[in-house]
């Protein structure tokens, strides 16, 4: 949503809002049911992402330790893969990952400026070199997302303020989304990316303190900005992660405020996550978010070196 408001437009909006039937929005609560990374398996250090496959098995990107840690559906440690380095299969402070419909993993190997592809059991398959920016800055992939329907791989290039669009069939980058700026679909240090069921793209635009959504359509791709700058309810200070539930509601984590807020996919604020007693639910640097197939919300608490699992209630 643009900050540029002309008087006629504002008056029209005011009339529309006044004329709209008032819609009831209930509080959204979350009940903590498990913690991953403490008690089973190796100690996590500053984890940055989490994914769950169709069998409920959990993958945590333990970036400072340069590895992906694999847990079973009960959160018990199974194995891990990756180590520090720049050879195939090695990582340099990776920050994000995505999973395709086959359960294979794409890892944004940030420090090595590449995306690596692994089988579901952690075998290295191949990697994708990323294009350098026009002024020579090297790519800085911080997150990836897969559109299995359209065979698209989206790579967040943080330092270059873009989302690179890779055609998995043609095996080449075709275009990008964003670009440095504050207007419309422009981005400043985008960090995370998630797709909803329709393939709509949600990008956490950290310094613009918003989450921007884009349509998969190549021509009219910018859709909406969700959230705005501030430290009050419905406002974002350090948005870091985003996840979309099966109601197409958008969950946004704020690592500094330590909260998760919920919006509809057009940017309307719905609620901040509360605990079962209706109190503000606080997290320690909540970063990436992920919904599994059961609708459980996984929250990466980076500075607490853990992933917490919540059941959403209303």
């Amino acid at each position, binding site marked *: 949503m643009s900050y540029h408001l002309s008087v006629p437009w504002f008056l029209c*909006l005011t009339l529309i809002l006044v004329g709209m039937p008032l819609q009831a929005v209930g509080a959204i609560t979350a009940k903590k049911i498990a913690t991953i990374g403490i008690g089973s398996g190796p100690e996590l250090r*500053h984890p940055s992402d989490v994914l769950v496959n169709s069998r409920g098995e959990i993958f945590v990107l333990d970036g*400072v330790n340069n590895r992906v840690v694999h847990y079973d559906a009960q959160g018990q440690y199974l194995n891990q893969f990756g180590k520090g380095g720049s050879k195939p299969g090695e990582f340099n402070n990776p920050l994000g990952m995505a999973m395709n419909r086959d359960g294979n993993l794409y890892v944004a190997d*940030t420090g090595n400026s590449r995306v690596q592809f692994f089988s579901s059991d952690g075998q290295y398959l191949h990697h994708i070199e990323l294009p350098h920016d026009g002024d020579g800055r090297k790519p800085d992939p*911080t997150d990836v997302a897969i559109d299995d329907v359209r065979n698209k791989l989206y790579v967040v290039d943080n330092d270059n303020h873009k989302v690179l669009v890779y055609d998995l069939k043609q095996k080449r980058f075709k275009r990008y989304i964003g670009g440095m700026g504050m207007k419309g679909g422009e981005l400043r240090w985008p960090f995370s990316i998630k797709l909803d069921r329709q393939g709509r793209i949600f990008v956490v635009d*950290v*310094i613009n303190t918003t989450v921007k959504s884009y349509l998969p359509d190549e021509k009219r791709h910018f859709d909406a900005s969700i959230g705005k700058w*501030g430290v009050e309810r419905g406002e974002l200070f350090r948005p870091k992660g985003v996840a979309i539930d099966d109601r197409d509601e958008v969950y946004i984590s704020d690592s500094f405020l330590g909260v998760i807020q919920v919006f509809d996919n057009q940017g309307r604020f719905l609620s901040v996550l509360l605990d079962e007693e209706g109190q503000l639910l606080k997290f320690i640097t909540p970063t990436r978010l992920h919904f599994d197939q059961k609708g459980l919300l996984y929250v990466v608490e980076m*500075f607490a070196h853990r992933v917490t699992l919540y059941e959403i209630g209303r």
Partner: protein
Amino acid sequence: MNSYRVLGGLFFLCLLLLPISAVAAPEGGQNSSKECSMCHLRWMDDFINEEKKDLLMEMPEARVAADEMMCYSCHDGSIADSRFRVWETSKHKSGIKPSENVTIPEEFPLDAEGKMTCATCHTSHGVDTRVDMASAIFLREANVGSSMCKRCHRDKDDGADEGMHPVDVEFDALPQEILDAGAKVGVKNTVICETCHTAHGSTGDNFLIIPNSEEGVPQSKLCETCHGLSPDMSSDGVLRRHSHPVDVDITDDAKLPARWDNGEEPYLGGGKKVNCRTCHSPHNGTKKNHLLVVNDGGDKLCMTCHSSKETILRTKHDIPRFNSKEPSADGEAAANGGVCKSCHFMHKGYGPRMWARQVEGESLDQLCISCHAKGEMAEEALTGEHSHPTGVGVDQAVSEKSGLPLFNVEGDVDVAGKVSCATCHDAHLWAVASDQRGGKDVDGDGNSSFLRKSETKQQALCRSCHQKQGAILGTEHDLSLEADRSKNSHGQGVERSGVCGACHLIHNADGDKLWGRNLGVGEDVIEQMCNACHSRGHLAEEKMTGDESHPMGGVPIFKVGKEHTLPLYEKNGRRSRQGGVSCATCHDLHSWSPGSERGPGEKKIEGDRFNSFLRQANDDDATLCATCHEVNAMILGSDHDLRVSAPREINMERLTADETGVCGACHMVHNAWGDGLWSRGVGSGKNRNEALCNGCHARRKSASKKRLHGPKHPMNKKVSEAKATLKLETARFYGKGKIDTELPLFTNEGERSPEGDITCSTCHNPHRWDPEKGAPRASKNLEGDGSNSFLRRSNLPTSGLCVTCHTQKANVVNTEHDMRITGQEEKNRLKQTVGESGVCSACHVPHDSMEGGYQLWARGLSDKSEMLPERLCLDCHDEGRVGHDKIVEEFSHPETVLVGEATRKKSKNYVPLYDPSGQKSNAGIITCPTCHNPHSWTPENDRQGPGRQLEGNNRSSFLRFKSARNVCSDCHGIESLRRYKYFHSERSDKKSRRRLRPWN
């Protein structure tokens, strides 16, 4: 939240913010207030709805821009990734008040409590550091050449003279390894604070860019990265370099003070390892003293850790005391450098152990030789050619037990290493068992001389490694027991030299084996050493060996096709598998009895077969002798084992077989009474071999029951057929090696020789009852047969022994003259069947044949003829006898001999004539063997008989010739056939035959 309240609030907020938004947030522009509030959280006040105050956090009271979590909110990877460098490694101290050692300028703010925080050094409004955004660290001021570090740490650049590691010193280049680790350098490659330290990102202590002292990491790695490039220092490890080692355990004898001279407590790296910091303090060293922690860089520091080395003082190795002007390799006089530096440089040594003198090579021995050499400081104490070897290995089990150090190629103690000078000598300790320090002019001995152990019976330096040789104590070879007053070549009696030193000199010996006494005579050096004492007029003259003793030198018989366990020796006394027998082959000069750990402790003790310094006891199995003479050990349990057959018999030394052992009953190894090391009496006989046998096999002797009564196989005679065969076999014995079943010939002196004669031992092996099975156990006076009886080859079933020589006679096998075909139950005069005697001995016996010994006949004689050959034949070919089927009634051929070709000896078809005594004679008459060869069924081929009874014809029938034209026709012409039929036809009756007698 109530949605109506939200919508209402939005409406009014829109109204309120309209003018602000229109000004503060132009399209695409930057809202500076918002941007500032990204970090200056308190500035958010301007944007907070004071009415709602529906805040998601508590606002901080302080108006400082940022705390740690504010930094982390961007440095978590979302803007920059500092997770590892700042939060996972050691970082510059924050959250505490500055120490007294630093002075914080006012420009570097502390927090409200006076503690250091991120913002003390960092600000997003810092100076232009001329780096890109990716590298910017937003310091409060430019940190050129670590200048910002020095603002607080103000005395750290005072220089080495003030005890500070130098900074701002220019280098051509710094090692790439340290640059790769993140080191920064100043202008012109100067060393700066950040060359070694980093405020963020260190994985070690003290913010060092390379861990330098933690447990589990190479100690002093950071120091070595630069200082390892110095000359003669290797950066690839700590042991090979010629500098004081680091990353090693502190010595056991270290006596560390509570504090060093610089006020610091002694420092050890991780795992209590020695580290560069143990001796040097990079920021608190003593002044003008190489950053050392003590004021005195000499002996005091060294002996703090190596306190036990203090014993070097006042010894010959106290160089400053006795050779004060002696310069080290760097030219510094010993008096100036001190005791330790006379031999060791802490850094940049010239050889192993940081050696302070010029050396060649890496051997530890070279250190000693650098002084103990001609023209050098210790030239009066040189080691000569015949000295204890160095550079040799020691069995690891022995090494571990010895308590003496071995050294590997790096010069370090290693149980799998080699012997070095330092194995026996401790250069820092003159006398291990006393407080004596020696001094310059004191001669050493076995109790001093820098030996690691005193060479006395109690500590026994030599025996530490030569543990088996320690068994010499208490034996007659222990000269201290003998109270010997003789001295070794160095003029030392046993009380000074020790037991080992009485015979061996470790340095400058007279010859091999480090021999330290005179040598006697002998085939090799070993024998010469023994005879140094075991000879007339010397210490052990009562134990001399005479001429008739076990032979020495040469190739022992056991070397043929058999591994041996006794040592052989070259002439020079060295062990060699190609060597010969020497004294030490049978004797272990250091052990009174096999396996003993010490001797009986008595002087002049008489030994026996179980001790006497024998390597192996000559026990009831004759183990020692049998080691070489394995075949002869088969005598055990036979009648020639006198313990079985004559236990009361005594040898020339009046010892019974039980006292001497089985071999010693007949042989004496030393001082025997004749050839063959014979220790018993001898009997009659031209050949010595025969005489030895007759020493027992004679009347009133121990083997009188087995003496020979009657005629016997000829000996010492020219038997051409036998000699030819035996020469061949005997020659083979000497030419290719021993074959036990060969039949040797012997000279009259009893030596095997192809030119010798047949004697008892040609057919008999007195040490082996059965050529295939050895001996029966305890079988006194067992009656033998053709398969045993000490024969060299079995005569069963087909007389293999006999036909070795009598090859032509072998054709009798399977003929009707082979009793196995015609008379298996027939017995010879020894009452043996052919199955017991063999084919030949059914008719002939080599001993005790019939009177006169004709043909060694073993059967009876017929009285139907005067001709002896005929009497042999008719004994069987007669009624009721085994040859009754082949009786020839008219057997006597007329005496008249018609001279023909066949009677000429040189004739190809020669047939013999015989006189009545059976001897061949041209004046003889025709008799049975004239025409018949009783050993060959057919003359046509050289083969054995058909294996069954058979009616012969004129081509067989034991006739000598294959053609009818010969035997008969030579003399009788065309009448031959008729005459033959007359005498041989079954149809001719006696009457008609008489009528047809052609000569009637």
